[in-house]
């Protein structure tokens, strides 16, 4: 479903050209569970942003669901992000002034889904993630685990094909982190492609496919590909 062919990404920092990704070839299928591990600066976040269409490759081709999405303009990128991609971040990234329910509703609002359908979906998501009694709470009234559950609910509200998680357990204690990983892994069973970027071998080690990156290259893949 995700296909990267000889994808590179370089940045201009001052008068220096910094290459964050070099000739990445990668194919990920629906229902794949992939972790990307590597030291800081190895390019794993850049790769995640590229796959999430928040960024564009400097060279190479990116296909998503068979379509070439390498050179989409802002509006087309936004549409693909809205329909196919969900994000979960280390620092949750909830909007502090909105209730848990409205945070979950946000992608649906931006996509212009009619209010009646939004209500059904949000109610179901609150139920699924055991947040029903927290629906009206603002993020600062929620625990870390609850916040990340809101974030996952939000990421899945548009039924994305790909879920990108950037250090999803980085701000959580071990028990809560494990709980969050379990929730993410449940999505794999629903044929969502889950890609987790992490420092934590305990988290990364659970994935079926484990990619290791150094200096903008995928140096090894362990586990078995589907």
């Amino acid at each position: 479903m995700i296909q990267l062919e000889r994808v590179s990404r370089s940045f201009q920092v001052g008068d220096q050209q910094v290459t964050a990704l070099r000739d990445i070839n990668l194919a990920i299928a629906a229902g794949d569970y992939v972790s990307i591990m590597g030291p800081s600066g190895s390019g794993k976040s850049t790769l995640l942003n590229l796959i999430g269409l928040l960024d564009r490759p400097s060279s190479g081709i990116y296909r998503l669901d068979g379509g070439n999405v390498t050179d989409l303009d802002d509006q087309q990128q936004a549409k693909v992000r809205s329909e196919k991609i969900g994000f979960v971040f280390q620092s949750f990234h909830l909007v502090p002034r909105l209730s848990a329910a409205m945070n979950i509703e946000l992608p649906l609002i931006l996509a212009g889904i009619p209010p009646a359908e939004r209500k059904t979906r949000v109610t179901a998501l609150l139920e699924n993630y055991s947040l029903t009694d927290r629906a009206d709470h603002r993020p600062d009234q929620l625990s870390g685990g609850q916040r990340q559950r809101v974030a996952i609910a939000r990421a899945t509200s548009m039924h994305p094909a790909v879920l990108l998680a950037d250090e999803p357990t980085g701000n959580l204690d071990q028990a809560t982190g494990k709980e969050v990983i379990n929730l993410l892994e449940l999505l794999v069973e629903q044929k969502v492609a889950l890609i987790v970027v992490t420092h934590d071998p305990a988290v990364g080690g659970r994935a079926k496919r484990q990619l290791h990156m150094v200096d903008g290259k995928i140096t090894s893949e362990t586990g078995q590909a589907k």
Partner: protein
Amino acid sequence: MLFPDLIRLTTSSFLAYRMRSFLTGLGIAIGITAVILLTSIGEGLHQFVLAEFSQFGTNITTVQPGKTQMQGGNVGIFGSSRPLSLNDAEALRHLPYVESVNPGLMGNSDMRANGKTRRATVFGEGRDFAKTFSMKVQSGSFWTDEDNEQARAQVVLGAKIRQELFAGQNPLGSYLRIAGQRYRVIGVMEAKGQILGMDMDDAVFIPAARAMELFNRPGLMEINVSYRASTDLAAVTRVITERLTERHGREDFTLISQEQALEVLSSVLDVITFAVGALGGISLLVGGVGILTIMTMAVTERTAEIGLLRALGAREKQVLVLFLGEAILLSALGGLAGLALGIAIAQGLHWLFPALPVHTPWLFAVLAEISAVSIGLIAGVVPALRAARLNPVEALHAE
């Protein structure tokens, strides 16, 4: 994104920073208050002055002796033009469109009755004076004789003269001595009050021929012609000019119509209203700077949120609209508060000082609110564009 959601989202940030939103809106509110207050007073003044000038009716055109040149004004007294006579006035009476004609002049004289003396304005007028100027006679009536040299010594009293010289008695039929001559009182005017500083009640009205004799003037100061309301002014002007030119052999007189004078006056007053409104507009600009400042801060503070919105599928345009929406909400609410405050203060002033005329036309209120919203829009554009153009990756990692 649906419109109600836009409202919901912008309102949420408005409410999240209540104090800040209040203060920013206050800036706009003060600006709108100033604009509304100043234009209300300007417009009140406008209407007051126009009402003063038009209370004699607006369908009046006045003939004065002498041709007004581009500069130098009326040369009637020193020039070689023929004076306007009672016969001139009579000649205009039968022209088409004309409803009534009044020959007029004025002066000052002392007058005596019941052993009391008073100095007051003496108006020499025609028999149709009250009709021409829509003035009311309280008791008795004006003379009905033709306006000619043989006019009898009759007088109509202003309300104040009646009070001062004939207190507690019915003056009709009594005599009033003006400059030593005996005039029989045949009418009393209704109280009219002051008009542009001239007390119409502290005056008496006598036939124009008598007044010319009294003040030793060769002719009238003016002839007032009232015409039918539906008539075109140009047509009236044409027939009067033709008739008088025929009589005088050349155009040695000037026509001044109330309508034109009022138009000029009105446009001058409009400029004044606009000018004071523009002064108030300066404070509105300051309010706009406040919005610009707060929105710039908001974009900086909420950079991560902007990145998140983009990651959740928001287009650049949606981010733009969200931030513009906040700026407009601030200015629109500030504007409404300013409208309420401005109108309240204007009415309060009017209540405290009834002599101060205030008037707030709906159009001004609507225009003020539109300018408030426009200011918000303009002030919001730069920060909102900045928000929309943020690189989503960098924005997401701003903490």
